[in-house]
């Protein structure tokens, strides 16, 4: 049996913009513009990057919350991006999602029992009414909520408890892959730790694969096996977490890591302050998309787009610096950030 659960090949998602008085028609937002990766069974892949880099769009495209512009999404050997909605249904069970804000993703007019029963019923998982109750009880136990929670409404819970309900609801469908889209970002520090630990426990127990979409690099480092760094709709670097955090190979990854404030007063660090803002995904820069902010950009970067290429086993980077002789490549040497 192949260990690969999900494969994404050259995924593109462009959103057409409606023309208006001030803006000509025919423009598109290049939200995701050619992204490829795979997720193994029981593995966590983190998708990191700043707002607008396309990381959430990738998550939603995989779940087929909309149709994609080009590329392939393959779940367990079956192409799902062009599958008709009817035959997709059983596969939807295998991919579930936990969003950032449980207050808006949980129906406020459904009690916890009904919130958890809905996916079980939709996918015909319960053999009897008693089995349904038993499943709901077990789910609550797994996410460490009391049984009495069944009869209560989402608004009666705290943010962390609501996120537990959202996780239980995702688990109810017995998925293989859970997309966590900023699932812990809105939580307070102490609660965030509880939910992170819970996700890790559940992953181990059920052999879940996680696509962990986040902008919080310290949490990502704690949670994940591999990391894909996105910038303006493209993956710029993809590698096992140790290589990313020990010696980033892309200048954007390097800057991103150096910008994270560390809870250690007086820690001596080299901080790279990127100039300017992320360019618009409507009109991304020619050549390397990062060249407008890259401290190491040279002539080639302005004209030729670098491809995502393997540097070492399992490590990929899209940067022309690695074609230079090592002496001229500031990111060649393995060094701590």
């Amino acid at each position, binding site marked *: 049996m192949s260990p690969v659960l999900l494969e994404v090949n050259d995924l593109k998602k462009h959103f057409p913009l409606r023309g208006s008085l001030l803006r000509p028609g025919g423009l598109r937002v290049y939200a995701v513009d050619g992204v490829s990766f795979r997720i193994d069974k029981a593995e966590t892949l983190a998708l990191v990057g700043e707002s607008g880099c396309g990381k959430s769009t990738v998550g939603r495209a995989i779940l087929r919350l909309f149709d994609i512009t080009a590329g392939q999404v393959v779940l367990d050997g079956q192409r799902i991006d062009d599958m008709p909605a009817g035959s997709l249904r059983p596969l939807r069970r295998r991919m579930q999602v936990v969003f950032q804000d449980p207050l808006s993703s949980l129906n406020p007019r459904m009690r916890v029992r009904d919130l958890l029963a809905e996916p079980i019923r939709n996918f015909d998982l319960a053999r009897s009414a008693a089995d349904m109750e038993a499943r709901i009880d077990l789910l609550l136990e797994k996410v460490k909520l009391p049984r009495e929670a069944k009869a209560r409404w989402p608004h009666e819970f705290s943010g962390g408890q609501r996120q537990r309900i959202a996780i239980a609801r995702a688990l109810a469908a017995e998925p293989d892959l859970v997309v966590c889209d900023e699932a812990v970002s809105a939580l307070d*520090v102490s609660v965030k730790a509880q939910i992170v630990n819970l996700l890790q426990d559940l992953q181990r127990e059920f052999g879940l694969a996680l696509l962990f979409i986040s902008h919080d690099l310290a949490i990502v*480092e704690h949670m994940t096996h591999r990391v894909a760094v996105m910038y303006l709709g493209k993956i710029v670097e993809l590698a096992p977490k140790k290589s990313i955090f020990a010696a980033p190979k892309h200048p954007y990854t390097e800057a991103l890591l150096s910008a994270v*404030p560390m809870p250690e*007063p*007086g820690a001596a660090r080299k901080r790279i302050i990127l100039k300017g*803002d992320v360019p618009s995904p409507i009109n991304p820069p020619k050549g390397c998309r990062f060249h407008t902010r890259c401290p190491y950009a040279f002539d080639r970067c302005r004209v030729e787009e670098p491809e995502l290429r393997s540097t070492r086993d399992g490590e990929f980077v899209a940067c022309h610096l690695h074609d230079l002789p090592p002496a001229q490549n500031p990111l060649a040497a393995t060094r701590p950030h």
Partner: protein
Amino acid sequence: MALLEVDNLQTHFRTPDGVNRAVDGISFAVEAGETVAIVGESGCGKSVTANSILRLVPQPPGRIGGAIRFQGRDLLKLSERAMREVRGNDISMIFQEPMTSLNPVLTIGRQIAEPLRLHQGLSRESVEQRVVEMLGLVGIAEPRRRTREYPHQLSGGMRQRVMIAIALACRPKLLIADEPTTALDVTIQAQILNLMTDLKRRVGAAIILITHDLGVVAETAERVMVMYAGRKVEEAPVAELFRSPRHPYTRGLLSAVPKLGSSLGAAQTRLAEIPGVVPSLKQRIAGCVFASRCAFARDLCRRVAPALEEKAPAHFAACHFAAKATVAA
């Protein structure tokens, strides 16, 4: 005399189901030119503290008690008219969400000019000149052209720069920054924090920085106050607080945050959790506010609220067993 002295501040809100004691008797001082951080989780009262200083809490349902002395004057005793002279002039504030605090239908030039016209009585030419100068100061390219733009034409980071320009336009003595970088991406956050530290050095304003991000605290503050459930539980110079936190809540917070580089060490560890949830502020808590979640809590903690004691030089903690907790953990 300190620049700002907050004495037994109590901000309570009347709600249909009881009085919410959002801030329940906290005292602190800010010296001229100093950066003090207030950290804590949602609902701990850190933003209410900030809003109370500028009397931005609607009264009723709110009620502010205690004393807030700014350069010796009690702000709570000033008339509304006198208070308006203080806001934006001597004390100014930056909020988390620049899109909701900037007026969408006014050019940013006009919005930076407003406090200058109101408070400083400058001529039109000197106001204009000052506006361009402020935009340049906060690192906005082509400042003259930008004065004619509207907030929606700017990115999130630029909007926050404009907010800072407005806040610093009158050269305030105290700047209150309420989660100024929380809504920003990390590379933009780095730019803004750099800018704030740099401007503070040049303008010489004291800063009260309100945040939940311990990394931001470590990198910008000189002194830190930790709040929990409306009370101050610990206060110390920044290096001291991170090196030897005394209060079990502070210790819990610090160990609940994973540090960058954690995967490079030896074995991966589980994140430390603080069990349970923050208590409701609608009931009066007799003992220590943290007792219900504290691993070291004893009978005494549930009965008697611990006073803020100096546990080490300039290091205060409100815990009956702080010293013992340090040894035990």
